[in-house]
């Protein structure tokens, strides 16, 4: 797997390879988030997902999120690997690792990263279900999946931490 902190891959992700990238002597905490493919969404069965990506821009946007995190939580290190292509139920789609001297920043920064990924990183998923397939993120699904499109207001600001 790539040594870069921000990676797009079409191969299965090994979570420990991502957390190893942020491991360091100054860290007292590493939070590791795994985003996995869910079978049931509001009772609707997913058979598998297909992820599409704008690769170079996606990596640039992940790097931007990394900079945003360091501005908000000093002394954190972030690594993200996102998988694309066809993913089956329970496959790991994204792994986010954050290390920091103390645990609070690592928890908060990790959640910030996944919220920002869902806002500004050019990756799209197509859900293949029993009734056919559809791209998630279109107008229809903004209503069907309200939590999938977090508003900017949901992002914790510096002065609210």
């Amino acid at each position: 797997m790539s040594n870069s902190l921000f990676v797009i891959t079409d191969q299965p992700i090994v979570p420990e390879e991502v957390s190893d990238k942020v491991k360091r002597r100054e860290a007292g905490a590493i939070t590791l988030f795994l985003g996995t493919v869910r079978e049931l969404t509001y009772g609707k069965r997913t058979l598998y997902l297909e992820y599409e990506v704008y690769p170079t821009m996606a990596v640039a946007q992940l790097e931007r999120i990394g900079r945003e995190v360091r501005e908000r939580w000093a002394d954190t290190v972030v690594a993200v690997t996102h998988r694309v292509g066809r993913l089956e139920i329970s496959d790991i789609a994204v792994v986010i690792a954050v290390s920091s001297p103390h645990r609070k920043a690592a928890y908060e920064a990790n959640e910030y990263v996944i919220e920002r990924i869902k806002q500004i990183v050019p990756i799209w998923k197509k859900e293949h279900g029993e009734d056919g397939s559809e791209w998630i993120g279109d107008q229809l699904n903004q209503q069907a999946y309200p939590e999938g499109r977090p508003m900017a207001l949901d992002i914790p600001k510096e002065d609210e931490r």
Partner: protein
Amino acid sequence: MKILCFAHLSEQLGASSMELELGPISVADFMAELKNRYPALLLDHVMIAVNEQFVEQTHVIEPNDTVALLPPVSGG
């Protein structure tokens, strides 16, 4: 300019990229031109990135730029 399309847009267009002889042109005018040429494209909520950067409606796209049409993202 080079146009890149993703998700439902590339399926509607039947291609993930194309070349258009356009520009300099503002993002707003570019979108209007696109709707004119490809009425079937669903461009609501589509964001524009020029050379991999999100831009405002007033940004001017140059003839040699790469323009990406980005539907609302759904990673994670």
